[in-house]
């Protein structure tokens, strides 16, 4: 083979490449700017914010707004900061995500590997719940929570979020398990494994990517939910999002913008962390099944 034929068939166009990178850079800055503004202003004193120039870094760095937002800011009647509400959110999110994911996985397992007459109808009905707007179910939900005697409690919020989450988690797991080889289930049946044993020993260990997808999706939605928290939350069950709103929109006293910025970042941090830590599974899980590995 002659040396000339080793040259790349298409020569890289340096100008085009530069334009591409410049565009990407502009968009990256565009998306990161709000985060930059929030972080910078949360580290300034209130006086410095009042002087204007939101984009400038702090002349005098301080972490006091973070401390205030976490444990001292006035929210509602007491000056507790966001901490108790953060704990409320955690107490709500962890069981809601866990239970809705497990139920979704079981639904997906049954709908693909133990199909029965009318399985597709059942799946369509479960899927329909993904498309019902939150507002429509507020009154019926309130009635149900009242009937069960758990209105205004964290348990009540957990129940609502599970009910709403099952549609999505079922969709995720059904589509993932649809491409899971049925012969494996049959082999396990011949080995003597029962319904739950197959689920636990064969299916779940192969479900890593889709478990991550379901957990991230559910975590983000439930953590960020405002409507249900505002509608069904009570003093000891109000989630972080509602508390942040109360903090920012309180009409008494001075508006402590630096504390508000710090509080908003605190409220957004868990979802950000979850995505950074398991985001690569998210992408892998969403594309799994499209190409059989």
């Amino acid at each position, binding site marked *: 083979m002659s040396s000339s034929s080793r040259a790349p068939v298409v020569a890289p166009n340096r100008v085009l490449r530069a334009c591409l990178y410049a565009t990407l850079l502009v968009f990256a800055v565009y998306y990161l700017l709000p985060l930059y503004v929030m972080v910078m202003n949360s580290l300034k004193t209130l006086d410095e914010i009042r002087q204007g120039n939101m984009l400038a870094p702090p002349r005098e760095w301080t972490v006091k707004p973070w401390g205030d937002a976490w444990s001292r800011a006035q929210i509602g009647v007491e000056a507790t900061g966001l901490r108790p509400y953060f704990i409320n959110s955690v107490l709500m999110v962890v069981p809601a995500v866990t239970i809705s994911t497990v139920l979704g996985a079981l639904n997906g397992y049954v709908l693909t590997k133990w199909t029965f007459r009318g399985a597709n109808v059942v799946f369509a009905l479960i899927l329909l719940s993904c498309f019902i707007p939150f507002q429509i179910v507020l009154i019926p939900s309130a009635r149900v929570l009242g009937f069960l005697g758990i209105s205004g409690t964290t348990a009540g919020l957990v129940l609502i979020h599970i009910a709403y989450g099952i549609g999505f988690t079922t969709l995720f797991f059904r589509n993932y398990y649809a491409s899971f*080889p049925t*012969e*494996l289930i*049959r*082999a*396990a*049946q*011949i*080995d*003597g*494994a029962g319904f739950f*044993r197959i689920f636990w*020993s*064969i299916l779940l*260990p*192969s479900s890593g990517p889709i478990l991550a997808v379901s957990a991230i999706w559910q975590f983000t939605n439930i953590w960020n939910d405002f409507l249900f928290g505002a509608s069904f939350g009570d003093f000891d069950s109000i989630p972080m999002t509602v508390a942040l709103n109360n903090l920012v929109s309180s009409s008494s006293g001075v508006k402590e913008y630096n504390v508000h910025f710090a509080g908003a970042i605190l409220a957004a941090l868990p979802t950000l962390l979850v995505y950074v830590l398991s985001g690569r599974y998210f992408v892998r899980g969403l594309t799994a099944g499209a190409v059989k590995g």
Partner: protein
Amino acid sequence: MSFLQIRDLEKSFGGLRVLKGLNIEIDAGGFLVLVGPSGCGKSTLLNAIAGLETIDGGDILLEGRSLTGLRPSARDMAMVFQSYALYPNMTVARNIAFGMEIRGVPKAERERAVRDVAETLQIGHLLKRRPSQLSGGQRQRVAMGRALVRSPRVFLFDEPLSNLDAKLRVDMRTEIKRLHQRLGATIVYVTHDQVEAMTLATHIAVLRDGALQQFATPVEIYNDPANLFVADFMGSPSMNLIPAVVERDGDGLVISMTRAREDALRLRVPQGLRRLYDGLGGRVGEEVIFGMRPEAIGEAAEAGDGDGGGVVSGECEIELVEPAGSDTYAVTTLGGVEVTARLRAESGVTAASRHVLTFALDRSVYFAPKDGTRLA
């Protein structure tokens, strides 16, 4: 009494009958091969035996006791799947031991059993690996190990070799045959490969569209096919099936096949072949399908040479010669179809020339063109 008995078995999916009243039985230690084109119901039948598929009629009996209603694990059968179906999250050792683990077999006993099986199949060095780290042939061995470790009453194989490359397939085929001989196990084996069926089976059941075409030993299936479908499906290269007309010549019968650009080839049926006279005597003037295995057509030096017994000869135009190392295949056209003769490797036959071929009519079979039923 038969060891495994399938009685009037019926199975439908929706309104579609996929198994139509099957009756098959084999003795302990038998090697039953279910063979047929795809969609013939052979895998459904295997799944029904395993208990993975319910049945809609008839019964399956093992040692005289009905298996109906028994869960797959309660039937004491082991199955090897086409895709091997190894648990991807478990090591090879755990894959093999999983069934015992569920049955609560103590750990020490499990480990000993796994070691024994690993030694039999020469997979000892793979025990700690995961299925994804194995080659196709190794996965196949592990899948067999998982079946062997149970010492079940029946082994079920669902096209176990179809995912292997040609060389490995032949090796594993030999290995399965050897295992069967050594263990004396009863095996039901599904394949669409008729060579596998011929080489492995003690009995073959040929299926088509859910109906049993023939159930017999490989030799019978090969030499004495029950109908046109079996004759065509079994054997490689396949049987020559030549449109021919039965004619009367004096007190004898003649099989006449048209040829392009020359007179029909007329083969006089020797008087000794009572089978042919009985089957074809009433069909004079009718068209039949004349079936000859390639090896039943041979080569003779000149016309009349080699005649005698059930063998007759005729001169044919050889169109094509295909040396295949061990044999040489010669192709001519009779009755409008290509006819292959299997000759010796050192045969002097050359293409585009005339040679005398011998036809062993004692090994010929005849079918009705309309429905493929056997005439003689």
